[in-house]
């Protein structure tokens, strides 16, 4: 079973919930798909065994041949190439590596090379968690390319937990596309509600079952809860805005590690999800 932990608004507590779930259950494959800012390792403290570079192919243009690259510029859907009278300018950050320019361009004058965009790390942590994370190279825009490398590492075992990036754009969609269930973490505030609705819209379009965890309950109002009740959205848990939880968070300790009651609560969340999926 693949469970993705996502949110609309950032900073709501995806990693808190994802790592808590992993540590409570104890036996899973944990994948940090927030490759732009992976932070699950602070709480899971994995021993990294293996690091692999992620590369994509990008073109380079042999402009000294004097060939005409106009067809390449016309073909490029991302406008990554400007062909001027006296100059050819390539914009690597816009290139999506489709290889089209090589196909339509002058024979042999468009070549490709490997460009490093990030890394994928594999490790282990206690109790019995296989840990994977992606790390996008600073300055690179190729988030999904690094996430793709993580996809290849998924071994459908008993449980795969995916810590997703925030928002509703490509990186998030990529992180939830294969999930059996998505946990949406939100905070009980107007922004939290607004962005929750955006996430729900995406998941409904993708046909993914989901439930909500309200984190930092007490900092705002009850509009999120009222919305969920009104729309038949299951609230899996409410985590209060608690100074103790925040204190342990700030030193990289999951709430399930210092309070056994929370461990039980997260085990129950998993049971609820399993029940929902059987129905």
């Amino acid at each position: 079973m693949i469970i993705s932990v996502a949110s609309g608004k950032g900073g709501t507590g995806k990693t808190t919930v994802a790592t808590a779930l992993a540590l409570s259950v104890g036996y899973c494959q944990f994948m940090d798909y927030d490759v732009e800012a992976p932070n699950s390792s602070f709480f899971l403290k994995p021993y990294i065994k293996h690091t692999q570079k992620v590369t994509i192919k990008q073109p380079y243009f042999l402009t000294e041949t004097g060939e005409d690259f106009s067809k390449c510029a016309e073909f490029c859907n991302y406008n990554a190439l400007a062909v001027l009278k006296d100059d050819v300018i390539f914009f690597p950050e816009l290139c999506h590596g489709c290889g089209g320019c090589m196909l339509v361009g002058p024979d042999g004058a468009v070549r490709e090379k490997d460009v490093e965009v990030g890394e994928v790390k594999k490790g282990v942590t206690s109790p019995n968690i296989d840990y994977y994370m992606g790390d996008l190279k600073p300055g690179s825009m190729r988030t999904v390319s690094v996430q793709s490398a993580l996809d290849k590492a998924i071994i459908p075992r008993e449980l795969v937990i995916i810590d997703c990036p925030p928002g509703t754009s490509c990186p998030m969609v990529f992180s939830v596309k294969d999930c059996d269930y998505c946990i949406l973490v939100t905070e009980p505030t107007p922004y939290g509600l607004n962005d929750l609705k955006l996430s729900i819209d995406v998941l409904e379009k993708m046909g993914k079952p989901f439930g909500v965890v309200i984190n930092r309950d007490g900092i705002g109002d009850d509009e999120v809860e009222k919305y969920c009740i009104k729309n038949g959205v299951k609230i899996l848990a409410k985590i209060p805005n608690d100074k103790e939880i925040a204190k342990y968070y700030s030193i990289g300790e999951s709430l399930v590690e210092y309070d056994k009651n929370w461990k039980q609560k997260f085990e129950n969340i998993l049971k609820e999800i399993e029940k929902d999926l059987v129905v």
Partner: protein
Amino acid sequence: MKVAISSSGTTLQSNVDPRFGRCPYYIIYDTETDNFEHAENKSSQAMGGAGIQTGQLIEKYGAKAVITGNVGPNAFRVLSSASIKVYSGVSGKVNDAIKKLKEGKLTETSAPDVGSHFGMGQK
């Protein structure tokens, strides 16, 4: 000399559009003959690289200068490479902008004045 002006419409009474890459039209004005034509700017709906595409369009029309509101970094790079002068920070009617250019009242810009994606999401 041909000069391209980013425009909200197709006539000289149209307003100068504030977006180099995402304006709906360009007025290509010949300052020697006082003839002009308009070009539809297909880049306005581009996902990305609108400035890059528009820069090539401006060169194809033979313009040696551009009058507009704002120019982003990629657009500026393309225009510089093509040796096309940039007059940004201009607003008002197209014909007034042309008059100012002829009278030498416009200042050439030496750098982009806005960041990427400035023109996105504007009507």
